[in-house]
């Protein structure tokens, strides 16, 4: 420390003692425009200045033999000998070449990639903005190795999970930390209270990821720090990696105005193939109230009008159509296509982006305004987003800069109920028989005694609307009568003061506030499906607040001529609060659509719940970066963290080293070997230290609950034992890698191998009940990952007119849960018959459920009829993690024409499309519609022998003991289709491999300086998003996820479908 002070002292003194020759000049960019704010200093000293509005500088240097260094962010640093001249003009060169690539570190500072020992991948932000995705997260797909985007579905605004280098936690937050302009940005996906109305995360509506509040067009750079070493400064929030985002600053010069409009046309990617030959009913007979479509053969009907009973009850639709009880079904009409068209549409969005940027020597500014209006492919679903951003930087003095970045986002959307939820869309839609016309979904029911009930719901199981509960929703009710809106206001402001007393020393004071309120309204009118049939109006008001303060000191100096040191010391306080107020009115007295508590003012019909969290961390950190002979770079960092959620403090060390072993050695123009080691964590959930007094509970032994609320209220000691000794989950990772460039830097290759262990994983374990408690949350698990990453960039061709760049990235990750302290399995997706679980010895998230009995050789142990038999207990059915993934693309331009393509391939892994499995029971899919005449006697699942010559509905299958007939006995009431824990779910598992052309775009830029130089350029483009794709599951996109954003994956259950788009864009630069 003493030595450091001496050095600083020396440097300060040195500044005052020299100045003999005056040099002036003008600095311009490649187009000849003057550059403002370029740093010009006498090489090796702190003597320097910056260029003015006209690009001019004047500097007094020691003597005529001095050298000058010119530097500017995004430009190559250049050193020029004065060589006796009094004027030194310079043209700065673009830094876009691979040489001297700049990366942004975890603290938001720029460093040269070639000097870093930890792997870091830059995302092409133009490609993200161009991806055609409405949200930035989905735009990251295929852009970098080992950055995996797991989508929920194609709903407008639906959240997605980002997973870097596989799974790093079981119950904790699995998303990377997002650092925007040096401070963390909240990226939660909250399921809130409203989803509980429909059974929690596996039901309900899709929720949003808050990172999508950022406008992709405001992003200047994006960096993914995957490894523990690069992220260690963020300690307990960094186990899943860090994505560092920098928003745009004003470019110096006259105001640049640009406007871009995009129009997207979205369609459903895959439709479940539905049959139109078999009617509603069972056992080959028509029934108009049956759940299933195992009824009669529709072409065999007479085709006459249905015979109805007009003497009793009936239903009058909104348009006056009257439905009577059907006595004999004669009509051969089917409605598969019209039903589909009633629900789905060509959705899409219109996006406007407007920005003004510029700057003078005193200040620079960027103003961005964006507006997105999206309509989903499901009618009435939408997502609108308005972004306003103002970034400004003021150079108050040579030594003082003040910058403020402020953004406001308003999003509003209406979501459609989905998943395992009788009031959900796809559940009612895909189960609808082909001979049911869903058009008339609402009307008046008249009973046989003449009593009329208005506002009744007509569904395929209650086609007369003769019950308040329709059993399953008519899809038109789901989209037209139920609403689930969300409105989010979000403000993010980051002021920063940079003080540079001398060239080698900098103090940075950085604050931020990230505040949002999220209002969600759920409305189920009377006669909505299931428990909602009395009517439910619920509201969640969610408030989030994150405040951050950092004080950082940075210094660079040479210890000796050959050894340089960059030291950073920082202190940070981060404070996060979350608050949710949920209110609910159940059972409406009035059958109205107005969202008001007046629908039922009885005290017992209303509920109120309040939930809060608060956490704070306090960190001190330091980084020492050594530079030996400009060849070897060593970084040591440490972060000591005290956090409200852990007991005591925790230290996160990291080290990385890079050795530039080759420069211009034959075809190898640059070679670097790097190694890194680091430790990062996952913080415990807040407020888990204490054992609490729990109010509101019910006791049951078997379907016989007794509820304390009905016995005057009261408390119990929470059966979840508090744990005052919580510590973070600790991931320790090492990685080695190399960055190589060939052919005069035209071809760049980065390879990284990493391996990590994660100890003290936080999970809830079951205690011995006789100890007095049921469960305890604590550090009770361990896991490991290893993997390989390869990134390749190739400037394949470049001349003044034409340019072709190609990139590709490959990744694989192997995960294994190594210890759960005696807990056998942890269910990550409670409520699903096929679940995604943590099990020791398997990768996190394995699919688990009942399957078929097999012998040691893997052959099915068949029953006497030749059919598989159910396993006694659930078992591992598959692994949803892909074996490896490949991303790639090309950018081609020729004069004004640009062609971009991005492709992603995900190989292997398994997926359980449970909709398709359950639909076998319902008999609505083509899989169940086969009609054939047997040419041999065949046995069905019930053991009945069906003689040759019989025409049957079914398929022939051979499980190993000769052909058997899969008919209604197998699909509907056997073990080969349906719900619950008694199904051979091994047959429901499908290969999740897919290939998607994420982007294929063509654009043309019409010259420059058009219309008397008023317009700098006009760009028109057309592109596709996910339009071309290949997967192995007919009707279901394996990229969707029933359980949304979380640790569970590989499941689907009547989840809203994915989308693909065609886009047209128009851009104008003034």
């Amino acid at each position, binding site marked *: 420390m003493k030595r450091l002070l001496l050095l600083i002292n020396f440097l300060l003194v040195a500044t005052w003692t020299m100045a003999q020759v005056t040099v002036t000049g003008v600095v311009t960019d490649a187009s000849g425009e003057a550059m403002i704010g370029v740093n010009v200093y006498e090489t090796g000293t702190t003597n320097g200045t910056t260029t003015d509005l006209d690009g001019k500088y004047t500097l007094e240097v020691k003597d005529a033999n001095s050298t000058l260094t010119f530097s500017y962010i995004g430009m190559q640093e250049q050193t020029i000998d004065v060589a006796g001249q009094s004027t030194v003009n310079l043209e700065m060169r673009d830094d876009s070449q691979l040489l001297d690539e700049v990366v942004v570190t975890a603290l938001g500072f720029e460093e040269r990639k070639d000097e870093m020992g930890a792997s870091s991948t830059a995302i092409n932000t133009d490609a993200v903005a161009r991806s055609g995705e409405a949200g930035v997260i989905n735009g990251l797909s295929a852009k970098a190795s080992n950055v995996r985007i797991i989508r929920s579905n194609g709903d407008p605004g639906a959240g997605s999970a980002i997973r870097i280098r596989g799974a790093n936690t079981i119950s904790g937050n699995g998303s990377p930390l997002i650092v925007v302009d040096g401070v963390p940005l909240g990226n939660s996906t909250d399921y809130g209270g409203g989803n509980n109305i429909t059974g929690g995360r596996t039901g309900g509506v899709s929720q949003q990821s808050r990172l999508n509040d950022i406008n992709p067009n405001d992003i200047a750079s994006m960096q993914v720090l995957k490894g523990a070493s690069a992220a260690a400064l963020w300690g307990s929030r960094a186990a899943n990696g860090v994505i560092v985002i920098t928003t745009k600053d004003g470019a110096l010069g006259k105001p640049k105005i640009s406007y871009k409009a995009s129009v997207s046309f979205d369609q459903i990617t895959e439709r479940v193939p539905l049959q139109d030959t078999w009617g509603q009913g069972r056992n080959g007979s028509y029934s108009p109230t049956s759940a299933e479509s195992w009824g009669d053969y529709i072409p065999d009907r007479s085709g006459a009008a249905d015979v109805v009973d007009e003497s009793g009850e009936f239903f009058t639709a909104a348009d006056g159509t009257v439905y009577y009880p059907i006595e004999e079904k004669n009509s051969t009409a089917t409605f598969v296509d019209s039903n589909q068209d009633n629900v789905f549409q060509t959705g899409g969005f219109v996006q406007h982006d407007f920005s003004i940027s510029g700057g003078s020597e005193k200040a620079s500014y960027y103003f961005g305004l964006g507006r997105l209006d999206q309509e989903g492919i499901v009618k009435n679903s939408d997502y609108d987003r308005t972004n306003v951003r103002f970034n400004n930087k003021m150079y108050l003095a040579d030594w003082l800069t003040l910058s403020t970045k402020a953004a406001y986002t308003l999003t509003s959307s209406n979501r459609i109920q989905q998943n395992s939820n009788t009031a959900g869309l796809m559940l009612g839609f895909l189960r609808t028989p082909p001979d049911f016309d869903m058009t008339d979904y609402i009307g008046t029911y008249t009973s046989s005694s003449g009593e009329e009930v208005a506002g009744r719901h007509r569904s395929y199981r209650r086609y007369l609307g003769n019950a308040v509960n329709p059993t399953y929703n008519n899809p038109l009710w789901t989209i037209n009568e139920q609403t689930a809106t969300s409105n989010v206001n979000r403000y993010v402001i980051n002021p920063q003061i940079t003080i540079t007393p001398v060239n080698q020393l900098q103090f940075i004071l950085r604050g931020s506030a990230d505040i949002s309120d999220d209002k969600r309204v759920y409305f189920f009118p009377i006669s909505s499906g299931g428990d909602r049939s009395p009517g439910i109006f619920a509201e969640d008001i969610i408030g989030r607040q994150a405040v951050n303060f950092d004080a950082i000191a940075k210094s660079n100096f040479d210890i000796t001529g050959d050894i340089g040191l960059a030291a950073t010391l920082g202190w940070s306080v981060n404070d996060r609060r979350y608050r949710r107020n949920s209110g609910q009115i159940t059972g409406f007295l009035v059958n109205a659509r107005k969202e008001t508590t007046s629908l039922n003012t009885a005290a017992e019909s209303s509920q109120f719940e309040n939930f809060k969290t608060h956490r704070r961390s306090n960190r001190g950190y330091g980084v020492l970066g050594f530079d030996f002979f400009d060849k070897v770079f060593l970084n040591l960092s440490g972060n000591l963290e005290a956090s409200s959620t852990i007991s005591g*403090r925790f230290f996160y060390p990291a080290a990385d080293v890079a050795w530039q072993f080759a420069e211009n050695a034959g075809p190898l123009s640059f070679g670097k070997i790097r190694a890194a080691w680091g430790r990062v964590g996952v913080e415990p959930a807040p*407020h888990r230290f*204490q054992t609490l007094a729990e109010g509101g509970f019910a*006791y049951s032994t078997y*379907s*016989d609950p007794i509820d*304390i609320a009905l016995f005057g209220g009261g408390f119990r000691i929470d*059966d979840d034992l508090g744990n005052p000794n919580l510590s973070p989950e600790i991931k320790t990772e090492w990685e080695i890698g190399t960055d190589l460039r060939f052919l005069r830097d035209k071809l760049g290759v980065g390879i990284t191998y990493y391996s990590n262990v994660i100890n003290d994983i936080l999970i809830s374990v079951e205690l011995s*009940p*006789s100890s007095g408690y049921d469960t305890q949350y604590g550090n009770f698990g361990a896991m490991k990952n290893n993997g390989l990453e390869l990134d390749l960039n190739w400037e394949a061709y470049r001349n003044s007119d034409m340019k072709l760049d190609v990139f590709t990235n490959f990744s694989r990750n192997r995960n294994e849960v190594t210890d759960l302290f005696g807990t056998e399995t942890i269910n990550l997706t409670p409520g699903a018959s096929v679940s995604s679980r943590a099990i020791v010895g398997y990768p996190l998230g394995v699919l688990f459920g009942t399957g078929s009995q097999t012998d040691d050789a893997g052959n099915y142990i068949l029953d006497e009829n030749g059919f598989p038999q159910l396993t006694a207990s659930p078992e591992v059915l598959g692994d949803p993690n892909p074996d490896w993934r490949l991303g790639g693309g090309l950018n081609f331009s020729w004069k004004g024409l640009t062609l971009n393509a991005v492709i992603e391939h995900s190989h292997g892994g398994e997926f359980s499309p449970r909709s398709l499995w359950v639909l076998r029971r319902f008999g609505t899919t083509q899989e169940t519609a086969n009609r054939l005449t047997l040419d041999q006697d065949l046995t069905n699942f019930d053991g009945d022998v069906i003689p040759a010559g019989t025409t049957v509905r079914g398929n022939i299958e051979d499980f190993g003991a000769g052909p058997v007939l899969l008919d209604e006995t197998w699909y509907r009431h056997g073990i080969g289709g349906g719900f619950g824990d008694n199904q051979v779910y091994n047959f429901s598992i499908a290969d999740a491999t897919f290939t998607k052309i994420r982007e294929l775009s063509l654009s043309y830029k019409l010259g420059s300086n058009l219309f008397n130089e008023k317009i700098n350029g006009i760009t028109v483009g057309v592109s596709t998003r996910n339009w071309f794709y290949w997967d192995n599951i007919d009707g279901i996109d394996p990229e969707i996820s029933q359980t949304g954003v979380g640790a569970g994956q590989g499941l689907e259950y009547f989840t809203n479908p994915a989308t693909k788009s065609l886009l047209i864009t128009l851009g104008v630069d003034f």
Partner: protein
Amino acid sequence: MLIFMASCTGLVDGINDNPNDLAIEDVDAALFLTGAQLANIVAQGGHLNRISGMYSGQLVGITSLYSNIYGYALSTAESVSTWSRIYIGVVTNTRHIIREAPDDKLLTGMAKVLEAHAIGTAASLFGDIPYGEINNTEIADPKFDDQMSVLNAVQSLLDGAIEDLSPSASRPLSVDIHFGGNPDAWREVAYTLKARYYLQMKDYTSAYAAALNGISSDVNSMKYVPRGDANNSEGDKNLFWEILEGSRAGDIGTENSYLMQLLDASSGISRNNAKTDEAARFGYYSIESESGAANTGIIEQFEPQNLVSYAENQLILAETGTRTQDAATGLDALNALRAWLNTGAGVNANFQGEPFLYEAYELADFESGGMENADGIATERALLREIIEERYVSGFGMYMPFNDARRLRKDDTDIAVPYVLVDGPAAPYPERMPYSDDELNANENAPDEDPGIFVKTMVNE
């Protein structure tokens, strides 16, 4: 060093206190009582109770889970809920009350009775169970104690309760859903429980002595009394009604069980005689399994469920009086109960209009050739046989018939009720309930696997 100073914990202290739920110390100890009572109610009158009813010829498992269990396919998973209600729902909370309000003798007395009731039931159902080391934050895996030592500890606990529950401790207490804070009623319950467990330990002398101070009238019977809105189908209703009114309709009922045949005048084994008409009780006990709502008798939605009853105490007096005093003492106790039954108290208002008769027996009725001794056994044995049969009938809905069957199987088969499981498996009949799957999995001191339901527990060996 700077880093160390910067990251001080002072800035983050206290923030992790839970802002949503109350801390235990914020809540008055009395407010934990109702929850413990509810947990005890489901442990005494819930799933394992219904299973014990099936295994003693009173109930019949008709379909789904209950028919599997009726056929002895009883897994350790079925004990999870009851075990948890006893150890977590009852004991964790009663121990807290005793620890936090040691000077509130009414509260501690009630808490001790509840714990003794729950633990005593556990010992009698499962055999050896954890007790001495339970509810100790230092011990994650309590060891299992032998059944006899647990029952002895329960006796001491009840002695402590009786001491606490002096009449002077009386005050109105709304959180006590059984007796509203009446120490006299609680003290009587404590004595009846002592008698119950002495009976199980076959210490008939002590049982008699305890029962003399036990429940003296039906008002002081400890019952679960359902309440609330008739339209509300669960949460505060008769537990049996709830399961049939919900998704388990049709799964379990009385059907033509041995118990129902005993009551049915037309069956070959009817207990009706010149002094006894069980027509009303037959109707009252019949469970319509298709739904809860179809029932107006013993499982009607508001019908109370007996936990510790006047009839039980009276019949302990009758049995142990006969065994340890003389037949006349026993007979007096039995006749007192019959006199009470003869007021129509054994059925609810819906069945009091149906015929019933419980005339006093005379000793002659049990002498060889008497109306209750056609097979000519010893008078006292014949009397005991009648008393045990009355326990079998009056104990419907409690563990008493299952406990008696196991108790009497060793030396008293001549007086035991010779029940069969109608449409179910033949003897041997189960001797215990399996341990909770959760306890077996989590507790290192638990047996590797459950010994099985046919292994006799210590007191019945």
